[in-house]
């Protein structure tokens, strides 16, 4: 195990600037009202940079810059846009470790994950959409001998994107890559909990991007997010977050008759049928890892497998093995390469998780392991750490129904296939789900019966580009991570063309 030096200290791979303004029209612009806010690292709770506190004036300026850039950008050949996305990917790959350290320091997640997942996936995402736009085709339909309907893809123009704090760079990549590929100019607002890493990313790629094609306005939702989401001058709003803000964004969009895509989270079931325990082989080991995936990214994942449903006939044995696997998790300094679970992203996140551990106990859930804040001492004393926690209870408890967004799994048992599906679907949400079985037919039937946009089958928490990701029920609208995302960022232009010299004969 080794430890990366904290950003800005001796031996560090990267440094944050002491202050970040808004990135508008290809340069940094101070906030009109002059306000800044501190940005702490969850690792120690100490601020490491300050961020412009954006307001409506700054948002307007960014939208102006985007509108200036959009027409020319939208006319560039697809090959040129693909080339730019590939260059961004190349630049990121050349600075993978620096980006991984930057992301870990800002969000609190272990650098092991940013090195292996967040940043490589973000890089691949730009490459994927470079390929997708390069190979996209319009269509034509010959309606009769002299009449043809042509369908062209056209960019929307200027789009707004509001990015969550759990994967600041990867979630930005998920939204930026398709929007840019499709020829749109973007005004992006990072989360106020994690506003800095996207600026470090921009420092690496700014020279590649035409001014105004990507603009970043920092600030709070109430002050910068609202004017962006409610602007009549953006053609679309993309948001990842939670239900109330999702509804509010739809409400604003309805006032302007604009489309939205929303990804609003879930309470994902992870189902372990009895045949998982038929042998103590690699598959069994993989299934136990799948159970423990609730702790990935400290549980701060919209698809956290936060409800484990285990068939009664192997319940106790499998759960005991799951507890053992969970207790083997190494928690510690996020910049240690051996750390598996780092810090929660913010203090209010920590407090919310603790409030759920409290109501879970009151409702009668049993704490099988964890259940408290982790006091790691030393320089981590002020950081936001929670011990990986397993709760045992029933599906009607609130800890089974609400996204805790922490390293907490709620476990219950089921009798048979129908019981498993009923429990899995007894939720307001439908984003992710996991099915574990050695029986391919059962896996297929379960996967089709579960009302969720992504059913991981004998795997979990894999996010390859080219596999559509999005929600059923209250988990949102739209699909990311797939070329169908281009449709969310394009208009369809139909040219209906007559090649006939004769008139229709009506007048």
């Amino acid at each position, binding site marked *: 195990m080794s430890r990366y030096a904290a950003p800005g200290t001796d031996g560090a791979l990267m440094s944050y600037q002491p202050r970040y303004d808004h990135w508008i029209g290809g340069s940094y612009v101070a906030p009109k009202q002059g306000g800044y806010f501190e940005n702490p690292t969850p690792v120690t709770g100490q601020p490491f940079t300050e961020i412009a506190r954006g307001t409506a004036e700054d948002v307007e300026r960014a939208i102006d810059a985007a509108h200036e850039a959009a027409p020319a950008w939208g006319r560039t050949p697809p090959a040129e846009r693909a080339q730019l996305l590939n260059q961004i990917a190349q630049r990121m790959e050349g600075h993978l470790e620096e980006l991984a350290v930057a992301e870990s320091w800002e969000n609190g997640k272990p650098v092991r994950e940013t090195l292996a997942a967040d940043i490589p996936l973000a890089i691949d995402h730009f490459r994927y959409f470079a390929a997708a736009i390069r190979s996209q085709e319009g269509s034509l339909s010959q309606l009769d001998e002299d009449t043809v309907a042509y369908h062209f893809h056209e960019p929307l123009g200027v789009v707004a994107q509001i990015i969550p704090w759990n994967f600041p760079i990867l979630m930005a990549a998920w939204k930026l890559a398709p929007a840019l590929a499709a020829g749109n100019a973007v005004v992006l607002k990072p989360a106020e909990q994690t506003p800095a890493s996207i600026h470090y990313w921009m420092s690496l790629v700014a020279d590649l991007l035409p001014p105004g094609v990507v603009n970043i306005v920092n600030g709070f939702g109430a002050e910068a997010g609202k004017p962006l989401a409610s602007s009549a001058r953006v053609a679309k709003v993309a948001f990842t*977050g*939670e239900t109330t803000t999702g509804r509010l964004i739809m409400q604003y969009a309805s006032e302007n008759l604009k489309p939205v895509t929303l990804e609003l989270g879930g309470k994902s079931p992870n189902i372990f049928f009895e045949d998982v325990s038929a042998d103590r082989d690699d598959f069994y080991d993989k299934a136990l890892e799948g159970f423990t995936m609730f702790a990935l990214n400290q549980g701060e994942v919209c698809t956290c497998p936060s409800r484990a449903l285990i068939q009664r006939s192997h319940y106790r044995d499998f759960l005991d093995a799951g507890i053992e696997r969970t207790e083997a998790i190494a928690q510690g300094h996020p910049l240690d390469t051996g750390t598996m679970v780092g810090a929660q992203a913010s203090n209010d996140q920590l407090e919310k998780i603790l409030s759920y551990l409290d109501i879970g106990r009151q*409702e009668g859930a049993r704490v099988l392991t964890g259940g408290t804040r982790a006091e790691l001492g030393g320089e981590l004393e002020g950081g936001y750490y929670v011990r990986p926690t397993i709760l045992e209870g029933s599906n009607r408890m*609130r800890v089974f129904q609400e996204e805790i967004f922490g390293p907490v799994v709620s476990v219950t048992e089921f009798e048979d296939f129908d019981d498993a599906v009923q429990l899995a679907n007894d939720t307001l949400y439908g984003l992710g789900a996991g099915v574990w079985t050695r029986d391919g037919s059962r896996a297929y039937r379960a996967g089709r019966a579960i009302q969720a946009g992504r059913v991981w089958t004998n795997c979990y928490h894999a996010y390859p580009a080219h596999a559509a990701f999005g929600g059923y029920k*209250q988990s949102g609208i739209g699909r990311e991570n797939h070329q169908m995302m281009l449709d969310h960022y394009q208009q369809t232009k139909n040219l209906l063309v007559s090649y006939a010299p004769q008139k229709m004969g009506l007048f």
Partner: protein
Amino acid sequence: MEPGPSSATERVAVTEAAAQLLRELTGKHGPLMFHQSGGCCDGSSPMCYGRGEFRTGSSDILLGELEIDGLPEPVEFWMSASQFAYWSHTHLTVDVVPGRGSGFSLEAPEGVRFLIRSRLLES
């Protein structure tokens, strides 16, 4: 809008710290409302808006009207009816903690975040 679940039962309350923050926010933004959020990121938290900013409808219930000393009008607390189906056995107390917040909730720029603390309702 549906009527509150039961006018006889108090379902939501507020701590003194949260009440003080509501007074300050009212001074800046005018009358306020809450809508309880669900889902990921900043979900499972109460969102505070200017009254009427968030449009409630037939899918929402009014869980309570918080009487705050010094404020002429109560602060309404709303939740979607589908979410209430899973929350109805618990009493909620709006508290406030240091934090960065998110969503469009009005308190976030103050460096604090509203938080729900829960207890079981007596049956």
